[in-house]
């Protein structure tokens, strides 16, 4: 087995390891040590399996064991933890080794870093899933739109429009979802435009001002966040002004510590702010529940209009 002691293996730009008949590691090349951070001794420890990701362990060792028993080639993917505690995807391809008498002496394996291609694979899958979700949301929204033709009571129509807008805010979050986050600036702008359009006929004189920091939120936060904005802006359009027009302000500020959402209007306000937080309306019940979901604080001030601040 001299050939795996050769210096040329150390100069190869791939990770090489050699195992004996019992699948214990007996050699690793320099590239392996540089990449993983583990010496030969560490790589041949009995508890070597701790470096393999929990979800890949069973499959990995099953294949390795079978290959050593059957003296056959193997190829297996696994997440491997470097000594920096980061997991990297490796493709481990092994070939059985035989001495000059034809006796099986172990396996020679080459490991390739496939983390980048795994990342691309995940992104592709993610995009495909998002595409499917958006299509499904489109079908739901189309269904609601078709149903709306069969609602004849004005009050019922209003409830239905509110419901459409709530679902629309969720659908829009998916529409603005790229790689792993939602682009907040365009999300808020489009969300508010949609709400405005649905109440445009009644509130032609309402001016909307938006000031949003360019930032991103993960989808799990963007959805409740979008629903809160939807409720607050809808309330302002529906209740803040008595047909006399006014202004709605939406501000969103991102700092290292937290995010602050501010929605205010210069309308008639509400008699007692406490009534809103404990309100029995679906809108404020949702706002309270979603605020809790975000682990956020909610502050409502009714003074020359209504000002709501959410901090999370």
């Amino acid at each position: 087995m001299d050939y795996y002691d050769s210096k040329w293996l150390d100069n190869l730009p791939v990770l090489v390891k050699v195992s004996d008949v019992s699948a214990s590691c007996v050699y690793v090349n320099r590239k392996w040590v540089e990449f993983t951070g583990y010496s030969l001794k560490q790589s041949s420890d009995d508890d070597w399996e701790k470096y393999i990701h929990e979800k890949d362990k069973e499959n990995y060792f099953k294949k390795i064991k079978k290959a050593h028993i059957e003296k056959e080639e193997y190829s297996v993917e696994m997440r491997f933890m470097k000594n920096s505690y980061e997991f990297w995807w490796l493709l481990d391809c092994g070939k059985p080794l035989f001495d000059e008498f034809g006796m099986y002496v172990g396996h020679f394996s080459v490991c390739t870093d496939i983390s980048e291609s795994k990342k691309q694979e995940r992104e592709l899958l993610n995009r495909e899933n998002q595409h499917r979700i958006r299509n499904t949301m489109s079908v739901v929204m189309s269904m609601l739109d078709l149903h709306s033709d069969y609602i004849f009571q004005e009050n019922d129509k209003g409830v239905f429009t509110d419901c459409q807008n709530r679902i629309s805010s969720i659908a829009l979050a998916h529409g603005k979802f790229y790689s792993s986050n939602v682009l907040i600036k365009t999300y808020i702008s489009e969300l508010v435009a949609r709400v405005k359009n649905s109440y445009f006929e009644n509130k032609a004189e309402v001016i909307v001002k938006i000031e949003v920091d360019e930032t991103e939120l993960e989808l799990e936060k963007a959805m409740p966040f979008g629903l809160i904005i939807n409720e607050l802006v809808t309330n302002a359009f529906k209740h803040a002004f008595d047909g006399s027009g006014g202004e709605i302000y939406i501000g969103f500020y991102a700092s290292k510590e937290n995010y602050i959402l501010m929605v205010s209007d210069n309308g008639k306000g509400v008699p007692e702010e406490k009534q809103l937080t404990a309100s029995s309306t679906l809108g404020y019940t949702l706002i309270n529940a979603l605020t809790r979901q975000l682990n956020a604080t909610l502050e409502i001030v009714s003074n020359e209009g209504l000002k709501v601040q959410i901090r999370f």
Partner: protein
Amino acid sequence: MSKILVVEDDAVLALFLKKNIEQLGHKVMEVQSSGQGAINAVSNEKPDLIIMDIKLMGSIDGIQTMIEIRKFSEIPVIYVSGHFDESVKLKAQETQSSTFMSKPIDLEEFKERINKALAQARENKK
């Protein structure tokens, strides 16, 4: 009244598009769910505008369908899809269209795009 061909393989979405196009005062000439069906429809009767989903039933997608239609017609097209990445947009632009609408469709925007595309088509005919 303009004639519009809708190419969409989801039945509910197709109904939604049809309803809203008709509310704008236009006629939905036909609803097709496959690329080949769309090519046949345009060969038989020329619409003023095509609303084309990118992912379709059958062997050819919406962009490939438009490439075939472009061999014999210059009818304007609005593409709709759940996702437009840059490669899809570049490919679609080869069919002389830069009008894309992401699903879920914003109705106001949809109506605006239809009116704009039809106005442009009328202008080109002059």
